[in-house]
């Protein structure tokens, strides 16, 4: 376009190229627009917008793409349709076992449909490249849509002229023309007062016969604040992938143990897990005896390592920093660390026994002596006996070759082999195998193993008070999330903007009286019903009674 375009309005104001309605008086500028009688498109008050400029270059084309509301809607639709796909079968992320094999699982459990699901990568829908791409595009669209619109809007609303062109007023979506018999300046003032009662800010020009009443301009900024909030929210979500910004691991602690939280300087001790079920009289009929849980909690102590922390050779020095009872809805919080109650296991674990040695020939018993499952003492003097611990197994069993082995490092079936010296025993001592747990004693025929020695002596625990065991193991979820506070800030602004923009509407009413001819036009971004009611109310107070609907000029929608 080499010819210069005349953009100076008849009111004298020079408008930027591309302006639809004169920035000063509102007169429609484009040829086509001037001739038609259609209600005016009042977006951004008709101000020129960057993305509407002629001759877009490559950068402009990308910008226009992301600035388009239509594209944004398509992105939203594709995103939620994609999200639906992820709910057809359970996502792979719901299986936290280390041995989970997705390929096998989906095809075995769901057949062909499962195989296809796995093949398309849908078992990881929400972390797939295409889903993230959609979110990135929505984020970009949020930024560009907003920048493109908020500045022209601000410019348009910041400097508004009071006396508008007749064409502007008559072609608003709510309009009224009529005669006014009273004195115009007086009438205008009265109209302004009526609207002031409805909360409008009223401006009257020097002539006294033109008026602009405006209410709730702030609500126009609502959508932009909302978008800023959403952008911050998305950025916070992304920030969690920064190393160390998001820790999500589990620790399992058996009652009484202190375990390190790997990757941090913290240690946590479980002072005991406990679970309470509802009594039958607290439950309705169909739930009786169902074992419904009432509470489960873990009493923990949190320690911070003060010295020897990176070193596993030396014992770390621990300082207690916090004590807490962790409930499902009440995690432990310390600085940026959180420990949540995740799961539990009621399998007891034996820690130590304090048995007596009984001389079966004399009937006397000696002891008790303290025998721990983990790292026990190697020498014991109990009465006339002296015992040397030769070997031990945590989880005793016999393998296919008949050799003794241990199945695990947990004391599920502890076994101890002592070399015992004492009364009526060989000089060099005799081997005695001891199973602290009765079930193992029977299972492995302890007496048969010990042969004649079993007739001479017995090692026995006297009563449950001499058994030290942990009743339960608690599983805690360890969480450090440095990005989550930004997430809440983003959510807050999003809500704030949403509330500002939806529960209030920006309303403007212009009027001018020329001789005795009143021309009135009104505009709002939503809720024309309410706007018409306001305009009609003020007219009524000035002596013109009419049905608000009659002000409608194509603005009845929305």
């Amino acid at each position, binding site marked *: 376009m080499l010819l210069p375009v005349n953009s100076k309005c008849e009111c004298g104001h020079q408008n930027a190229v591309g302006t639809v309605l004169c920035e000063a008086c509102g007169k429609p500028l484009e040829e086509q627009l001037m001739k038609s009688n259609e209600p005016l498109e009042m977006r951004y008050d008709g101000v020129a917008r960057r993305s509407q400029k002629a001759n877009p270059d490559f950068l402009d084309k990308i910008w226009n793409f992301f600035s388009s509301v239509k594209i944004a809607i398509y992105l939203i639709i594709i995103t939620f349709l994609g999200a639906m796909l992820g709910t057809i079968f*359970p996502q792979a992320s719901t299986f936290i076992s280390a041995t*989970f094999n997705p390929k096998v699982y989906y095809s075995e459990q769901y057949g062909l449909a499962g195989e296809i699901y796995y093949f398309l990568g849908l078992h990881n829908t929400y972390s797939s490249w295409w889903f993230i791409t959609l979110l990135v595009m929505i984020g970009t669209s949020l930024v560009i849509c907003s920048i493109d619109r908020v500045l022209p809007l601000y410019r348009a609303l910041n400097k508004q002229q009071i006396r508008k062109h007749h064409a502007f007023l008559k072609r608003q979506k709510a309009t009224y023309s009529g005669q006014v018999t009273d004195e115009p300046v007086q009438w205008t003032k009265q109209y302004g007062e009526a609207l002031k009662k409805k909360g409008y800010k009223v401006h009257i020009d020097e002539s006294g016969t033109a008026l602009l009443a405006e209410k709730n301009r702030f609500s126009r900024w609502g959508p932009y604040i909302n978008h800023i909030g959403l952008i911050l929210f998305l950025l916070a979500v992304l920030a969690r992938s920064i190393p160390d910004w998001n820790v999500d691991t589990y620790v399992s602690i058996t009652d009484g143990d202190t375990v390190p939280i790997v990757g941090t300087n913290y240690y946590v001790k479980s002072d005991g897990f406990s679970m309470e079920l509802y009594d039958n009289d607290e439950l309705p009929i169909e739930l009786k005896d169902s074992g419904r849980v009432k509470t489960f909690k873990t009493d923990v102590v949190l320690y911070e390592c003060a010295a020897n922390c990176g070193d596993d050779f030396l014992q770390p020095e621990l300082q207690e920093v916090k004590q807490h009872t962790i409930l*499902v809805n009440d995690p432990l919080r310390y600085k940026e660390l959180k420990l949540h109650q995740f799961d539990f296991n009621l399998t007891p674990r034996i820690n130590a026994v304090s048995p007596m040695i009984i001389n079966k020939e004399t009937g006397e018993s000696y002891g008790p002596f303290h025998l721990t499952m983990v790292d026990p003492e190697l020498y014991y003097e109990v009465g006339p006996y002296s015992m040397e611990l030769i070997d031990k197994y945590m989880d005793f069993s016999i393998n296919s070759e008949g050799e003794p082995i241990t199945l695990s490092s947990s004391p599920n079936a502890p076994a101890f082999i002592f070399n015992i010296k004492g009364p009526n025993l060989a000089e060099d001592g005799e081997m005695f195998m001891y199973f602290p747990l009765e079930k193992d004693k029977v299972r492995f025929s302890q007496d048969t193993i010990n042969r004649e020695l079993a007739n001479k002596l017995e090692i026995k625990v006297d009563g449950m008070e001499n058994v030290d065991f942990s009743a339960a193991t608690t599983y805690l979820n360890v969480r450090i999330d440095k990005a989550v506070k930004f997430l809440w800030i983003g959510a807050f602004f999003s809500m704030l903007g949403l509330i500002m923009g939806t529960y209030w509407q920006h309303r403007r009413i212009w009027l001018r009286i020329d001789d005795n001819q009143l021309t009135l036009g009104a505009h709002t971004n939503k809720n024309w019903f309410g706007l018409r009611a306001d305009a009609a109310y003020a007219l009524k107070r000035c002596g013109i009674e009419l049905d608000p609907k009659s002000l409608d000029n194509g603005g009845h929608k929305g």
Partner: protein
Amino acid sequence: MNWLDFSSSSFIAAFFLYVFAFIFYMVAVAGKKWGKRDAKQHEARWSKIAFITSSLGLLAHLSFFFTRWIGSGQIPTSNMYEFITLLGMTIMIAYTIIHFIYKKPLLGMFALPLTIIIIAYASVFPQEVQPLIPALQSNWLKIHVTMAALGEAFFAVGFAAGLMYLLRVIDYNDHTKKGKRAQRWLEFTLISIFIVIGFIVAAFGFKGAGYVAQFQQETVDVSQVGELTTSYDVVEYTMPPIFKPYNSEALQVTEFLGMTDGLFETPSWFNGVNSGRKLNTVVWSIIVGLILYGIIRLIIRKPLGAAIHPKLEGIDPDDLDEISYRAIVIGFPIFTLGALIFAMIWAEIAWGRFWGWDPKEVWALITWLYYSAYLHFRLSRGWHGRPSAWLAVIGFVIVLFTLVGVNLLIAGMHSYAGVD
């Protein structure tokens, strides 16, 4: 005074008051042409009576809610029965608010049956108070669930207004392809509502008759490492078994119309112990719903939409369009705050993560994205009126899927207790 008994009585009172309000709305519309009445006056008078009745119903419903709270010591929002009755109550609250803004009584003619159907649906589920499991023992239960229900209630009112708009605007004299297609989709929507009614009728009917059937099902399950394990489960049916569970044997079947065993077997690719029973229930709902619809169709001798259409002639369709939009606009921030933001805060506290892509969470997000698309659509001209009304109708289907469909069809952390 036994609070829980009083609560149950209040509920029944609310139900009947809603039914009467609905009848009064019908009288207001249908009776306009009776005898020598002044149509406008008649409509205004009966609408007022209907509104007062529905408000009394709402008071009774609120009393049900609060007395149940006092009687059980916990807010009644923790299982399916309680949540869906809450939804019915919030729909009436949303309706009452919209009524005060717009004063269009005929909206009540659709909002009330919607509420009635919803609380009747709720009544199918176990009603006893169930003490809270640890995950629900939090103040957030009070805030998250009630706000989400309120937001969804406004979407429901938007649905009702949108449906009314379509009934008002779709021209049954239009025999073009486009016109016929619109009529058919509208009729399909109405039939779907009948299927929900069919479910309620079938559930209450068979339960009332004490129908019972039991099957033992053998299932082979796959563990996370690919190991196969076999298990045996007993599945109980409360409706005659058109579809018995896959790979099952009848233990006990009450006879119905000559049926003493399952007619068909649920296909093997249906997953879960209860999938056979659910399929059976759905099939029964469809059958009973279609029978009910068929009876009505025989009586009125034309499509249901065509019969309702003339009754709505007195309403300005643009008002309906406006009401539908406004309801959704009012509900959207409430839904955002209650169903998403408070949900995320609570999830962070209870489970350590604010979002886990749990099916319920995902569908709440889908609902949110859908209505957000709806609101952006309204920014363009040409998307008012019919397209907008259809979107409002479909939107509520998505809401219902989030509330009910996810629990029924998909497992997850969010499954409500007492879901059958």
